[in-house]
């Protein structure tokens, strides 16, 4: 036997998905999160898997080759404002780089409540009194023009340690050009305070712009001090239970890193949970031979939207994290405050607003009966008949329709509208917010949404997604069989991956050999890292990208570059791809070749494949009758009025079943709503594919 396990630790649940590497069979389990002792919740989920397979945990783990873990652990620290205590060392004169956050205050329509995270007493990542300056200076060419002052370093480190910091971040000006001073400080800390974690910017992210480099280095300290201790307890616990390898961590880039040898900073694991969802969508799309996918993950408080175009998930390199700009290759996931728990309210307009405030799990939606008075999207779902109040989470949570109706009626009173109109309005506003996010990742980035397969998952995704298809002309909506543990599943479909980049402005026309040698340099570094992670050569592959711009511009546009030896023609095709992409982003006729084009950044993704079998199919061999899964019927709201709608048991789906809208599929973790004019078919993996009736 041989297994791989994906574990996604979220705020409320730990999701675990097990893949049998021989049969391709999947198993899914959920255990409550245990934020105070994270490894316990994880072990509980693993035990549940073992129970399901009627195996002792030790036996299961002894046969497990990979445990891949993704986490949003730092989120809790941000929400509860209990960030780890981190000290920072900077060049003399520039300790305020981080608190300044490079600018004024984020644009606001309410100046009295304006805040700046960097100077806020509760929001500052590092308060000024934990930032120390040292005398030293490197110039823009990397020349040392003022030596590192040893006594300054000793004093700074001593004071920070006395202030009981858990880690020290170091970011000196121009260290990415000349890291000597940072290395010396790192060495000093390691020698004199081996128990204090130290992280230097020239190792974490050697790129220009000291603000973003500082942010990324401090974030690395946060993640390392948060993840490392529990990863250690978890590893010990797993080892005791006969798991033989090191744990793999999911990264926000959508790739997996090995954890044993600290070759990859933990900052790459920031908020890695959601990236699993995107990778899972990419994989399931691949089963359908689909390369253009829009993934939509709708949970209790938010919806994450992301695009995969031509087989490649879209990336961003300068994400904004709680107001701070970092440099980190992460999947481009747009998150909006639209989830099942999003609260509907009336502003002074009056217009009906939905979110971004969420009722959370407690008190939760009004229909939970835990004291929530305000109507949420879930309440509207219950009111409109989509959600079966006695089969929410498979009946584990009993919903009260009367409380949902009461909350909606109160809002209707404020708006002087009919409750039904208001409930339908909550849906419409919520959907329009989601559609705007979908427009943002497609149309506004120059991609045609009509080409994409929409993949919807998360507890609330399948309830709402089919309503979103028509606005953007999306023809297909697929609900994957792992819909409520899709991120953990996605970890299992990801490759090992390390990202490398370097900046070398190179005007076009340029020597293909020179460009090629830059990529080869990065690929060599990548190959060494893959070797350390024990990836055999035949499992390795390398993807190349270049960032180009018109000369004089500051911001770049990224395009893929072919592998192997580059010639003039290959470089020419890269330049053409840049101009095409540029015009797609910024409008036809905006290309500006007169000013010249230059390569700026060169990037390589060094990847290693895991052994993965084809997923087990569940072919029935005959054309089954959907009536076999029929549960009953109820009144559901579609196209302006309530209609009698058949309901089906979503846990009894068999390949080939066909459901004509309107229809409701009640699964344990979610409810699939198929509106009129849409038709759904179950495939051999038990995915549900919703299409327009007339496209069939």
């Amino acid at each position, binding site marked *: 036997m041989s297994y791989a396990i994906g574990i996604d630790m979220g705020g409320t649940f730990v999701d675990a998905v097990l893949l049998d590497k021989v049969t391709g069979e999947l198993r899914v389990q959920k255990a409550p999160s245990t934020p105070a002792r994270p490894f316990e919740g994880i072990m509980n989920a693993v035990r549940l898997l073992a129970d399901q397979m009627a195996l002792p945990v030790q036996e299961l783990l002894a046969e497990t080759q990979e445990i891949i873990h993704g986490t949003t652990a730092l989120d809790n620290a941000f929400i509860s404002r209990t960030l780890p205590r981190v000290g920072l060392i900077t060049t003399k004169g520039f300790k305020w780089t981080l608190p300044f956050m490079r600018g*004024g205050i984020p644009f606001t329509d309410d100046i*009295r409540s*304006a805040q700046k995270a960097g100077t806020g007493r509760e929001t500052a990542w590092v308060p000024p009194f934990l930032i120390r300056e040292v005398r030293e200076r490197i110039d823009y060419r990397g020349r040392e023009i003022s030596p590192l002052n040893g006594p300054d370093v000793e004093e700074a480190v001593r004071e920070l340690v006395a202030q009981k910091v858990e880690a020290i971040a170091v970011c000196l000006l121009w260290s990415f050009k000349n890291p000597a001073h940072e290395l010396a400080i790192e060495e000093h800390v390691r020698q004199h305070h081996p128990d204090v974690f130290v992280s230097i910017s020239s190792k974490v992210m050697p790129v220009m712009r000291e603000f973003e480099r500082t942010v990324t280095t401090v974030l690395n300290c946060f993640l390392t001090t948060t993840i490392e201790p529990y990863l250690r307890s978890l590893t010990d616990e797993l080892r005791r239970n006969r798991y033989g390898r090191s744990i793999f961590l999911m990264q926000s880039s959508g790739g997996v890193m090995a954890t044993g040898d600290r070759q990859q900073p933990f900052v790459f694991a920031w908020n890695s949970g959601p990236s699993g969802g995107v990778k899972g969508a990419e994989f399931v799309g691949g089963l359908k031979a689909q390369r253009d996918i829009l993934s939509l993950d709708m949970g209790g408080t938010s919806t994450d939207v992301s695009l995969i175009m031509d087989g490649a998930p879209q990336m961003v390199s300068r994400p904004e994290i709680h107001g701070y700009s970092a440099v980190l290759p992460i999947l481009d996931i747009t998150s909006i405050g639209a989830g099942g728990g999003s609260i509907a309210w009336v502003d002074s307009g009056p217009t009906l607003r939905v979110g971004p405030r969420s009722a959370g799990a407690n008190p939760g939606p009004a229909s939970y009966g835990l004291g929530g008075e305000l109507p949420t999207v879930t309440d509207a779902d219950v009111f409109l008949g989509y959600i079966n109040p006695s089969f929410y989470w498979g009946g584990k949570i009993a919903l009260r329709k009367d409380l949902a109706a009461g909350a909606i009626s109160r809002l209707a009173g404020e708006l002087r509208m009919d409750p039904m109109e208001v409930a339908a309005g909550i849906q419409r506003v919520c959907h329009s917010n989601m559609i705007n996010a979908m427009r943002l990742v497609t149309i506004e980035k120059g991609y045609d949404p009509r080409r994409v397969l929409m993949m919807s998952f998360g507890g609330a995704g399948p309830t709402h997604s089919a309503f979103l298809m028509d606005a953007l002309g999306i023809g297909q909506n697929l609900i994957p069989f792992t819909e409520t543990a899709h991120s953990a599943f996605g970890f299992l479909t990801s490759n090992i991956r390390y990202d490398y980049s370097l900046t070398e402005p190179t005007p076009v026309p340029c020597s293909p050999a020179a460009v090629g040698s830059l990529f080869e340099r990065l690929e060599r570094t990548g190959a060494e890292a893959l070797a350390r992670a024990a990836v055999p050569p035949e499992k390795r592959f390398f993807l190349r990208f270049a960032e180009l711009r018109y000369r004089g511009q500051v911001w770049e546009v990224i395009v893929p570059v072919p592998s192997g030896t580059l010639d003039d023609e290959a470089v020419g095709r890269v330049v053409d791809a840049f101009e095409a992409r540029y015009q797609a982003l910024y409008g036809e006729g905006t290309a500006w070749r007169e000013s010249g084009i230059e390569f700026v950044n060169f990037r390589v993704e060094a990847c290693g494949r895991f052994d993965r079998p084809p997923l087990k199919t569940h072919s029935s061999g005959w054309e089954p009758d959907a009536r076999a899964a029929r549960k009953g019927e109820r009144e559901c709201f579609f196209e302006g009025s309530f209609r009698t709608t058949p309901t089906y048991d979503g846990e009894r789906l068999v390949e080939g079943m066909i459901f004509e809208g309107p229809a409701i599929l009640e699964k344990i973790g979610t409810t699939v709503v198929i509106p009129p004019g849409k038709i759904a078919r179950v495939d051999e993996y038990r995915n549900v594919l919703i299409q327009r009736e007339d496209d069939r």
Partner: protein
Amino acid sequence: MSEGRRQKIDPITLEVIKNRIKCIADEMFLIVKKTAASPLYTESNDYSLGLFDGNRKFIQLGGTAVFHFVSLKSIVDEAVNLLGEDPGIDEGDMIMANDAYGAGGIHSLDLGIVSPVFYKGKVVAWTGSVAQQMDIGGMTPGGFNLEAVECYQEGLRFPPMKLYEKGKLRKDLWNFYLANIRLPEKQAIDMKGQVSANKVAGQRVQELCDEFGPETFQEACDVLLDLTETELRSRIRALPDGVYESVDYEEHDGRSHRFLKVQCGLTVQGDELKFDFSGTCPQLPGPVNLTKVGLSAMIYAGLIPSLGWGIPWNDGVTRPVTVTAPEGCVVNACVPAPVSMPFTGFRALEAAMRCINKALEHSDFHERANAAWQGMWPIIVGYGLDQYGNPALIPWMDGGIGGQGAFPGRDGVDNSGMIMAMNVHVCDVEWSETYYPFLFLERKVRRDSEGAGEYRGGAGVEIAAMAYDTPRLDFVNLNTRKYLAGYTLAGGYPGGQHLQLLKHGTNVSERMKTDLPSWEDLPQPAEEVGTKSRFSLLPGDVFYYTGGGGSGVGDPIDREPSKVSEDVRWEYVSLEKAYDVYGVALDPDTLEVDLEQTRARRDEIRRERLASDSGEPG
């Protein structure tokens, strides 16, 4: 006012369209930022853009410089006034303008490009953006002309002109423009970005019309304008009726330091506001004049954030408001007064803010009364050769991150930017040192620059740098607020004023080879640089300037001592100031409050004040 109009559009469709409009503005903002070449766009966010409805009413502002709101409006209106009949406005037109005298910003450097959006042959909307240019031709690189006595010396002045006619670039105008400015390559890229943003936004509005119909789109705009107007009027009604007056002074006329009076009278009557600047000094042959467009721009830049909390910022705000000033006064200057450094505009803004906040202080919204923010945007413009031997033009605007004024019950935000441009950004030091021949010695919080008070103002900033890898750099200094301070509320203290200092002939390069000095460490005497003047940096010279703090609210000796302790711990306030001004005695090591000594010191401060009282009533 259109109170009687029956609202046909439902609250749900309205919300949907409102959000879409906002998305369009956000998208335009990013296009301009990501395609541009100038740091003013890519780093400092010194541009704005917006969307107008079919009646040329401003619907949605994108970007951060609120004062550009009026600029865009003036360009769209003048485009139609001057070109609407002959030759007419056509689909695909891109109309540029930078004439502060009618169609433009506060000075010729603000260049706007606007474009009509057609739907089935009818104009249903306008889009546009306006941004400060690196150069606009004329006598001084960078466009700030100290010696100008007429606007004709200040570079190019475009009334609305079609840069694109029916979708086709006018090569003649394009070539003419680029031939007359100093950084044609960079500025051409910037303009292309502005054109792209208009094109994309136009397409988005057309898609919106496809989906909802142009009538519903216009109706949504009408309702949004009415909503803003109605809400603003209700807030104005809450202000006590009366006439509020304030006087402020610009400190320099371009040639020498002298006080130029700017007087504002605000009449609050029912639900209307009238700003009048009678009593303001006459225009003068120096570059600090403000035009009528500039005056409106500045007033709304203060009024909208002050009274417009939580409502859409659109043309609805202009309906209950009038702004007047005698023709030929310094804030309503006539041709040929030069206007490249319209610093009297900052004073008009602050005078108006002071009136609004006096009224707010005595209303139900008294918690929203706001002491003065940093009173202007310090600008240093440099030129010379960069470290690579190419001509350099350096708009150095790091002083922009001064402090916010306090509110009753709330401190001002530290390093907040200015009220008319909140989201201003400074370039990273590494970015600046790559593109400019600079070496920075420091950029940090200016300690004790906050206006003290029971609620204190936000802290300001201080910067020191030298020319590096270049034989010489020349600069124009544009500053003010050296002699006079911002207004305060309820006995607060004003924020830190602005300084520009120069130390000549230091051996800084030599010295740093062993020991990196700061500005303070350099023993040479600090020379003052005139608030509007030219200066040069030669090897060995170090320049220092500040961005001021915000002003305080309430008496500093009423400030919660624990907050003062925190301010000291967070290094915004010195131990000495804590004791001298706030009357708080702290243990120098633990920073714990000594309550007994604090009480004694605060009593002492009260006695000192009594002793220094001249006997004149306040």
